[in-house]
């Protein structure tokens, strides 16, 4: 007899199978259809993207002198699983490390919180950028150290101990760099500062890759699709800077023991001939593994040696700013070349007193420029802002004034091809409304006419002002790279900017600046070979004044415009003028005469005491 009472249970069993199959189907749909996540995992699993690093471009100065090049260095890699029977003592001695250091390093490598990509099967960096001499000792013994490997990398080398701020440096990419640009992988190098950073894309080239098939044990099974997906690396492009390394060297020598900056520009092209920031540091000490250590020390230094004062320092321009004021007043018709203002040891009006030094009074434009008369330019601004025939309000007047300043390259970044440029400050109407309320007048803001008060410029902007005057009314965006090998400079770097001021007014300012050299504040810059035009500045400061100089030479067809800014250097004539004159001489004549060399020696030896 066949028992049939449990006949219906076949449906339950059949249902169980159906349920299992449906569950698995849903799971499969989730794994295979819902996300690409597993696909990515699979690719990184099976394909070993063997990256081939291109050689980074070299950097030359304007005369073809090699400044920065590459040298091989070696990373010591470790595969944790393969480390066996290591003679720790011998190992540590070879690398000159203590046993504790060794243990700490090994622990750090296998600690996933510190080394998130850790795998015991894959190479991990044990020590990076071993210099070649240490490396050769290590290489001889390498066969004894199982599980350790060597990976060749290259480090940047610098020919000269100069231009550190300008050249910048190269270091391993940070987490932010990787997030910002998916070109980079952990362990890659990237330009961190200076030209290395701003021309990173040109210098680095493009990484190549070999797509290799790799099994779970890390063994390679040849090229994927016979190398169809392999890419050859594109080498980085060489850069030729507009810098003259000899001029740069002189500048750095002259700025020894001082804080400040020198910027020299070729007015006709906007090419920066020298960019000095003091205190400087030796870029060669930042090579390779030293960088981290040195960085720490320098970041703690109260003199802030990492700051590139030439483009990042913002200072009151002092009297050098009077040239820009003069041009504005002339163009706006506030003053004529024959207009004279009284200046009896300063501007005195409406309870406001701005001092000046002794010179004949009243005084016209050119001598006022030559003697750097404070009173003249205070009066100029006073009349400009107060001119209710021309401007309906003081706000309108200052807006016009501000537009002139911006046209001359102040208040905004000039767009130099360097990272971290500061914009300085040119106050506008809203700015003063905030400070004084809506009813302020010329009297409140007078100091800006002599480059004091709220106005700040970078040394680069001051030098650019010199270049604009040298060009009689226009400037090319200042830039430090002259030529990218096999490429072009960005259009923005070759852009001509015209200042809406007549050439004839520029000639008047040039005459004033020439006057300052022949019979005024810059007389020590005068020389028999070519006509120097200059303007000193003594920027008032709590404590010691800053010594400023802006000038260009020769007067006709100028070759160089210079700005010198020495913090707490006192009179413009004390540091600014001689340094500026020496820079001009070096560049125009190609060398210094004997007397100048002696002068340079003296200045180089002068140290300014700074209090922090």
């Amino acid at each position, binding site marked *: 007899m066949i028992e049939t009472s449990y006949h219906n249970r076949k449906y339950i*069993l059949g249902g169980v199978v159906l349920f299992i*199959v449906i569950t698995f189907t849903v799971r499969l749909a989730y*794994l*295979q259809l819902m996300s690409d996540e597993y696909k990515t995992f*699979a690719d990184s*699993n099976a394909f070993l993207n063997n990256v081939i690093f291109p050689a980074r471009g070299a950097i030359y100065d304007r005369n073809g002198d090699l400044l920065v090049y590459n040298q091989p260095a070696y990373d010591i890699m470790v595969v944790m699983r393969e480390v066996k029977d290591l003679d720790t003592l011998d190992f540590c001695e070879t690398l000159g490390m203590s046993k504790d250091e060794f243990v700490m390093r090994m622990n750090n490598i296998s600690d996933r919180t510190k080394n998130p990509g850790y795998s015991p099967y894959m190479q991990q960096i044990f020590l990076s950028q071993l210099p070649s001499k240490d490396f050769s000792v290590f290489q001889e013994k390498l066969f004894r150290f199982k599980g350790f490997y060597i990976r060749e990398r290259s480090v940047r080398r610098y020919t000269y101990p100069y231009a550190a701020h300008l050249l910048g440096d190269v270091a391993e990419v940070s987490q932010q760099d990787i997030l910002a640009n998916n070109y980079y992988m952990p362990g890659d190098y990237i330009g961190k500062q200076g030209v290395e950073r701003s021309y990173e894309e040109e210098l680095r080239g493009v990484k190549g890759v070999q797509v290799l*098939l790799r*099994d779970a044990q890390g063994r390679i099974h040849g090229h994927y699709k016979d190398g169809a997906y392999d890419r050859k690396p594109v080498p980085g492009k060489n850069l030729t800077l507009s810098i003259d390394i000899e001029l740069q060297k002189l500048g750095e020598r002259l700025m020894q023991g001082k804080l400040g900056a020198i910027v020299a520009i070729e007015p006709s092209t906007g090419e920066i001939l020298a960019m000095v920031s003091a205190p400087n540091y030796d870029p060669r000490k930042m090579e390779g593994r030293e960088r981290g250590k040195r960085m720490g020390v320098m970041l703690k230094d109260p003199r802030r040696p990492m700051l590139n004062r030439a483009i990042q320092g913002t200072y009151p321009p002092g009297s050098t700013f009077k040239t820009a004021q003069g041009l504005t007043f002339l163009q706006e018709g506030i003053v004529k070349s024959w207009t004279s203002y009284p200046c009896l040891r300063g501007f005195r009006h409406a309870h406001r007193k701005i001092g000046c030094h002794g010179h004949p009074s009243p005084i016209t434009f050119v001598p006022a420029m030559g003697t750097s008369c404070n009173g003249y330019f205070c009066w100029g601004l006073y009349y400009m802002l107060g001119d209710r025939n021309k401007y309906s309000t003081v706000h309108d007047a200052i807006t016009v004034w501000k537009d002139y300043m911006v046209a001359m390259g102040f208040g905004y970044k000039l767009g130099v091809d360097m990272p971290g440029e500061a914009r300085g400050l040119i106050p506008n109407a809203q700015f003063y409304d905030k400070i004084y309320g809506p009813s302020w007048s010329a009297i409140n803001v007078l100091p800006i006419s002599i480059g004091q008060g709220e106005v700040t410029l970078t040394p680069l902007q001051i030098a650019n002002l010199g270049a604009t005057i040298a060009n009689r009314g226009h400037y090319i965006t200042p830039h430090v790279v002259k030529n990218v090998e096999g490429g072009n400079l960005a259009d923005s770097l070759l852009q001509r900017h015209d200042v809406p001021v007549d050439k004839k007014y520029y000639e008047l300012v040039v005459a004033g600046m020439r006057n300052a050299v022949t019979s005024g504040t810059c007389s020590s810059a005068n020389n028999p070979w070519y006509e120097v035009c200059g303007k000193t500045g003594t920027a008032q400061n709590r404590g010691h004044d800053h010594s400023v100089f802006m000038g260009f030479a020769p007067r006709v067809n100028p070759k160089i415009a210079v700005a010198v800014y020495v913090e707490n250097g006192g009179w413009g004539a004390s540091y600014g003028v001689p340094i500026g004159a020496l820079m001009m001489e070096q560049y125009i004549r190609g060398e210094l005469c004997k007397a100048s060399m002696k002068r340079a020696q003296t200045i180089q030896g002068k140290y300014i005491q700074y209090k922090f």
Partner: protein
Amino acid sequence: MNQTEKSIFRSIDWVIILLYVILVVWGWFSVCGASYDFSDPNIFGWESNSGKQLVWGGTSFILATFLMLIEKRFYEAGSYFIYVAVIILLLATIFIAPDTKGSHSWLPIGPVKLQPAEFAKFATALALGKFMSEYSFSLRNTRDFLTVVGLIVLPMALIIGQRETGSALVFFAFFLMLYREGMTGALLFTGFITVVYFVVGIRYGDVLMSYLPVSVGEFTVLLLAMMCTIGLVWVYCRDIAIVKIMAAVGFGTTAFMLLFSFFVIPFNFCPVMLVVNILFVIYMMFQAFYHKLFTYVLVSLFCVFSSGFYYICDTLFDHLKPHQRIRIEVLLGIEDDPRGAGYNVNQAKIAIGSGGFAGKGFLNGTQTKLKYVPEQHTDFIFCTVGEEEGFIGSVGVLITYLFFIWRLIFLSERQPDTLGRVYGYSVVSIFIFHLFINVGMVLGLTPVIGIPLPFFSYGGSNVWGFTILLFIFLRMDAERGLKQEKY
């Protein structure tokens, strides 16, 4: 060819043979994919796994033909003999077999290795069929039931002795067959709920309810125990009044405690729930005496077991071997260690997931071929299907299995005698178990228990074992017409 053999040929179920051939061929292609070596693309050579598998597949067709010639009478007469012989073989294997990765289950015979555990399945199924087709047999008879359990547990114990826990667990599949044969569903249910308790208890044992100092695992297990007890009383004792009283007391107390703990004083009220469950037991024992109904005692036992389970669970869990414990922890998501214990499953998921909708194409999978997935050609063969044939292929395999098993159920149901039906359902149950555990493991849904996917996983014992299991049944099925003619 005489008259009998002709009619047998006619009554062979060609549907199942077709599905069988599909699975074997499909399986061979998958093994090709799994063992393909980029540097040595010879898939037919004896040196490669695919070449060997081709031999196993081919010989299994011969084996199948041969099995079709063995009459059912032979099994009727010889089933106990086969069973005893296999038991002796299993016992001997423990001592003869060399150590292969810690397991003593492989017997080297000439150039090949055989795994006797694969053959224990059909032997046990035959013995069960024979025993259960005795005229006086009844599953309700405790003695008979225990004999059946004994027949199942004996080979299981020997296989565990060979350190092949995975293969041993397959014998639990026979309880599915027993269910069809009339074993009370409560037993299957108890087994199922035990797994649920275990999973919930371990997974959420250390998780506290938000705002309350109460373990989610402990609370859930106790609540489930309460609900299942009430449910069992309802289904098996059929006294609505008692069910109402128990439900009111149980759920009322729980709700009150929950609200009190939430709004007044937070405290761990699990002991109170435990007390309620104990009260249930006392109440049911009282009912058992009062109504003279033994069922209440059984339900009480269930209640005691359920309530105590959480507390013995931790102890039980601690007594597992470390690698087993970690496997379970990884599966339940307590431990996340993609490069350690979770490596296999994680790599399997990557391989399958990377296949996408249509797969990477035959022999184009990278994960399985580059040996990221361990045991890729044996237990993890489904990865290759997933990677190379994608969603379409994977679901195709599952659906083929679905129809295969459904067809087997249909065939089992049409058997004229108990031997055929019991044997048929044993085959069904074993296939269900293998499919569920193997694919579930690859998909990360069930623990990693090393058992093969029938016809797909590489290995002679796998293909041969399942071919034998299946074709003994097909011959029985083919003879059903003859019997009817005889009577």
